[in-house]
């Protein structure tokens, strides 16, 4: 350096370089953020683009004659043998004339969902006086019809490569011209359990399974996690053992989740003989998974409580227990709750450990308790993504949208709770 330069000259000489460095760093940061935002936008766009159509479903208008001799042959309503499917089929035959061949008829019948018969049955059970009348009802169309209407089946493709034949497409067009096809809100998606027929498949079973599971998880992991955090942070003597425990808890938080699934399979199902595929076991496994997260977050929240508050209470003669429960806990609670909710949203999105404990089974019934066989939302996504029918593709995306909705809701709750309960000192 020249000795003749003044301090000011030296500072100014380096200024341009400092500015350039700062500018470069800012630009890099902005670029990184932009990349993240773009990926997120692409993800959401593709998800919504694929999944939005699943919330609509094609329905078919049929005039069904609820024939007395079919439903109540002996004068009494006989649901066990009543052939509702037959009634639907004859109604369909009436709408599309000139179908006489047996194989052609069968092809025609495939245009309407098997759910149509159940829908009629529910109608008659609700109001038996309908027997003998003709009812005009909207019944779900088969998923292939739905796909054709939504434009997901290419009409120009060779007939052998299409799920619908030329004839079937012709019939769909006839129905469409008569105004008998309509796109309506897909209620089944939210009120039904899983099904092999995409038009009847719903996420209610998976949502309820996830709900019961999370209930078990939160009921166990919050109290255990908070208690462990308080003990480790406030009461446990600092020793080699407590260091070891701390390291292990941090390690547990990073263990791949499938390992917890295997542990759950070995301990809860094989050894404790708890039922397979049950939300109870799923909840227990997810508890193991979320405990380290909650303990770490809770300890951080306890550490963040200013020592001056502790000292003030101790100086007044509060016991260690009173310091913790009167002062530390109320101040640390927002942080603990946030950690818990973040742990819960991780648990909600977890699928791998559930595969290990049998929650990946095909289950039609909506679970009504903790021990009923069930599946969970992310596992349902996995199951549907694995299904060959074209209509399951959009339902997979729809299920993901619902899952993301729940996650968003939980994280929002965490933010609001934190804002509400945060206290200044």
């Amino acid at each position, binding site marked *: 350096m020249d000795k003749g330069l003044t301090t000011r000259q030296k500072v100014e000489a380096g200024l341009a370089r400092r500015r350039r460095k700062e500018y470069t760093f800012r630009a890099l940061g902005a670029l990184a953020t932009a990349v993240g935002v773009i990926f997120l936008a692409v993800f959401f766009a593709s998800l919504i683009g694929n999944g939005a159509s699943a919330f609509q479903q094609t329905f078919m208008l049929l005039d069904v004659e609820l024939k007395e001799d079919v439903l109540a042959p002996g004068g009494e309503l006989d649901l066990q043998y009543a052939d509702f499917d037959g009634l639907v089929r004859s109604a369909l035959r009436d709408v599309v004339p000139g179908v006489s061949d047996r194989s052609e008829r069968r092809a025609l019948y495939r245009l309407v969902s098997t759910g149509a018969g159940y829908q009629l049955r529910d109608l008659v059970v609700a109001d038996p006086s309908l027997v003998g009348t003709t009812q005009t009802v909207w019944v779900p169309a088969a998923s292939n019809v739905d796909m054709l209407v939504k434009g997901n089946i290419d009409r120009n493709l060779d007939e052998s490569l299409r799920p619908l034949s030329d004839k079937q497409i012709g019939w769909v067009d006839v129905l469409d011209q008569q105004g008998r096809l309509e796109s309506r809100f897909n209620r089944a998606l939210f009120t039904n359990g899983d099904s092999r027929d995409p038009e009847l498949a719903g996420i209610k079973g998976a949502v309820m399974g996830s709900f019961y599971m999370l209930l078990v998880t939160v009921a166990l992991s919050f109290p255990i996690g908070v208690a462990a955090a308080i003990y480790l942070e406030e009461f446990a003597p600092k020793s080699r053992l407590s260091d070891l425990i701390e390291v292990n808890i941090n390690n547990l938080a990073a263990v791949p989740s499938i390992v917890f699934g295997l542990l759950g399979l070995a301990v809860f199902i094989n050894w404790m003989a708890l039922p397979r595929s049950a939300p109870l076991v799923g909840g227990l496994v997810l508890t193991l998974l979320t405990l380290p997260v909650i303990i770490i977050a809770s300890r951080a929240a306890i550490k963040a409580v*200013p020592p001056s508050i502790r000292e003030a209470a101790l100086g*007044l*003669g509060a016991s260690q227990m009173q310091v913790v429960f009167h002062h530390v806990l109320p101040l640390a609670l927002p942080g603990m709750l946030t950690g818990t909710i973040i742990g819960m949203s991780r648990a909600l999105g977890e699928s791998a450990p559930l595969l290990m404990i049998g929650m990946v089974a095909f289950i039609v019934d909506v679970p009504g308790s903790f021990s009923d066989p069930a599946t969970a939302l992310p596992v349902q996504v996995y199951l549907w993504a694995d299904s060959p029918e074209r209509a399951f593709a959009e339902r997979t995306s729809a299920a993901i949208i619902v899952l993301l909705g729940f996650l968003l809701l939980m994280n929002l709750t965490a933010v609001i709770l934190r804002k509400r309960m945060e206290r200044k000192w």
Partner: protein
Amino acid sequence: MPELPDRTTELGGETVGNTRCENPFMVARDVNVYYGDNHAIQNVSLEIGKKQVIALIGPSGCGKSTFLRCLNRMNDTIETARVTGRITLDGKDIYRKEQDPVALRARVGMVFQKPNPFPKSIYDNVAYGPRIHGLAADRAELDGIVHTSLERAGLLKEVKDRLDEPGTSLSGGQQQRLCIARTIAVNPEVILMDEPCSALDPIATARIEDLMDELCEDYAIVIVTHSMQQAARVSKRVAYFHLGLLVEVDETDKIFTNPQHKLTEDYITGRIG
């Protein structure tokens, strides 16, 4: 009393001046404090009298706060801290096995450097001590304790219409007086003050100093301070600490006009910072 050497310069010898006082209430004998391997306080002996203010002064890191925190066993909360020697309160060793630190701290209250009200209402701040110790039989009695304590701390006039507002909403000086009210609500016998005015402006400081004058009629007060003017204004006796040693103790007038030890003189004349 042997003749003391004039202006001794040696460090590590006996404490010069007079560590004794009339009517001693707390007595420390050969107190040593270690933080791990660090010998923070060495062989400190000091008597603390009833109804008087004693000021602990000295440069930063000299151990005066450490000594203060021995008097109500706040050092217990630091895991590596170890205290040897003997400190008695009213003739009984406070480090004896049967002594419950909780009970001790109800008798020896503490006011901290930074005002640290609880993030609760003003009322709850003052009522906290009486509540945990079960000092009030009913709400009316508790109200009485809260009012008297606030009044004695000179805060009642300013806050009596907003007792349910958070204590943290007060100004710094008011917060510190709230902390004093909170401490005297437990009716302790000794009040320890760890630089209670260092975060306050001169006006708030003056109020706290007036308060100390009033409070010392009932309590023994030990105050750690960095301000020699403050020590001169409020205390009856002054103890000068240096590098973990108690160098000199005497009547305030004597310390400030005729210090016996070279280090004391250097400090009070501003040669040691």
